[in-house]
């Protein structure tokens, strides 16, 4: 897959297969295209896919609108969760949850029924009940915003969850809670893609596969040990190797 934003090519040939039950980590230095990949999967309008396709359960995801993708089971945990003034967190999540139920031909939950469900799911990320009646993400701390993303994941139960730098800006305690939540939500039926800059997160959420993204391409794939090697040697190691290759090709 190739993709551009504002005419600039960011992804230059991504090939990736994620099976259900798997956790993949996508790592890479800043500007390598990690977040672009995450946003493309969710259908952000600013990104244009110029080549390739994204098959999700046999369908080309790129032909679906962002809301359709979500109802089909794709979820993006935002790197910078958006504040929505005037709309309560509980109200927002109930609407999203009911959209999904309707899509599946199920009965909608009324506010009271949903309140019980929300309280149950909130335990996954130890979320304070007080945050449910507040406006979505408004005045939330960085950690609360990230926990709120994972709470939405817990409510919507996606088949494919893409977590875009969910670890950034978290202190150790918040990181433990957030990653504990993700681990609880892992099932043999869903798949999780972790987009991260640091290996730190992978101590808590252990990936089956690790991919290194650099200049819009996956330049290295391996098991969890690849992340440890990266941590040890730094991204310069990859940059050096890939840079060398490119020079060689160019010559």
């Amino acid at each position, binding site marked *: 897959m190739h993709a551009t934003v504002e005419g600039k090519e960011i992804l230059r040939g991504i090939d990736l297969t994620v099976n259900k039950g798997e956790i993949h980590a996508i790592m890479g230095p800043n500007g390598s295209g990690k977040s672009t990949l995450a946003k493309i999967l969710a259908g952000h309008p600013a990104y244009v896919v110029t080549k390739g396709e994204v098959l999700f359960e046999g369908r080309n995801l790129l032909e679906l609108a962002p809301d359709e993708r979500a109802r089909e089971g794709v979820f993006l945990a935002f790197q910078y969760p*958006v504040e929505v*003034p005037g709309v309560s967190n509980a109200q927002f999540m109930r609407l999203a949850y009911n959209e999904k139920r309707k899509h599946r031909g199920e009965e909608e939950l009324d506010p009271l029924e949903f309140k019980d469900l929300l309280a149950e799911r909130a335990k996954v990320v130890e979320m304070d009940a007080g945050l449910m009646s507040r406006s979505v993400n408004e005045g939330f701390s960085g950690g609360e915003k990230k926990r709120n993303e994972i709470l939405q994941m817990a409510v919507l139960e996606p088949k494919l969850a893409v977590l875009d730098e969910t670890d950034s800006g978290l202190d150790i305690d918040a990181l433990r809670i957030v990653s504990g939540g993700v681990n609880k939500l892992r099932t043999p039926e869903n798949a999780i893609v972790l987009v991260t800059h640091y290996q730190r997160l992978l101590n808590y959420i252990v990936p089956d596969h690790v991919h290194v993204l650099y200049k819009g391409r996956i330049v290295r794939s391996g098991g969890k040990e690849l992340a440890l090697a990266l941590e040890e040697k730094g991204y310069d190691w990859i940059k050096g190797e890939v840079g060398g290759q490119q020079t060689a090709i160019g010559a």
Partner: protein
Amino acid sequence: MSQAVKEKSIYADAFREFSGRRAGEPVWVSRLRGDAFESFEAAGFPTTDDEDWKYTNVAPLARRAFVPASAAAEKLESAAVETFVSAEARRSRLVFVGGVYNHELSSLEAIPGGVAVEELGAALAGEHAEVVREHLGKLSGERGDAFSALNTAFAGGGALIHVPKEVEVAAPVQLLFLTAPGEGGSASFPRVLVVAERHSRLDLIETYAAAGGDGAEYLTDAVVEVFVGEGARVTHYKVQDDGDAAYHVASTRADVARDGAYELTTVTLGAQLSRHGIEVLLGSEGASCRVDGLYLVGTGQHADTHSLIDHRVPRCTSRQNYKGILDGRSRAVFNGRVFVREGAHQTDAEQSNKNLLLSPEARVDTKPQLEIFNDDVKCSHGATVGQLEEEELFYLLSRGLHPDLARNLLTYGFAEEIVEGIKFESIRAQLDSAILNRLRARLEV
């Protein structure tokens, strides 16, 4: 020129006839009416050459001779009325149909003894005649304001609310001005006088609505004068939901005494053309006011708010927050003046006007104005005009909300800041459903 003359005399016969019917009124009232009609005739309806009316063209209503409502108003079934009554004010309401007081539809059971809530005509003939005489027309400024002058000339259905000192009225008083189906071409001139004596408390709900027959063209020309006594607090809601084809012109003027507080929230939903003039005088130290509002207009609607908050003396506080939601081919005007006079030291004033345009055909002209004539003040003001935030929209879409629902939810969120400040559940609910219905949402909250 001949056009102007014709416009001015359009109500002359009606006024002669009206005066004849009102022959029994006290002389001072007849004189007030006569003077007002004269100043109306002298001024004529404003035109867009007038700076204050630059963006609001009243020519369509000025051309038309609306017929002032008389006693022979249409009847309304009480069931048709109940839907417009605020639940909190079931037993504390005055109902007017086509500008005429309707005793059967009104209820004053919850009004405590000593508090006067009565039809203005009755008040003139009763024990509160002196209160009316002392206050009526003292704020309305007929001179130079054709609509206020016309109101004073024809004031018919209206109310006096008098709260004696240190009395708190627990139930909100609702004044419900309804237009019955088939009243096309009629004009009503509601006139309200509120006098809250020192350390009293009053909640007032002023409602305008069309009871069926939404397409009728009629004119509502209202004037409300509010006197907030020393240390008193008046919380006032105005809900304007006149019919789609109606013209609504109103003036709300308040005078706040020392340490008194006036809190006005206006909700503008109806009428093809509406204009609301607001004037609050902070003329004694420690007086404060809050003037909030929400206008929600769609295709074919024009809503204009002109406000003036006049800080005349030191240490007064004012807060103003107006929000607008414009859909389709609609237009809104917000002109908010905050005037801080030379001696008004330590004035604390904030003003904000934010607008959300949901359609490329919607247009708003906003002009917040701070005029400050001393430098020992804390004042801020600002205005914005924008559309729904793309990132917010994408966030909601990414959670599976259909695009319509996502837009509605964001619009609802925009209005919420005003809605949540409303004390009465019935008004909040009405507003929620107006916002959501307007946007054809299936969003229940």
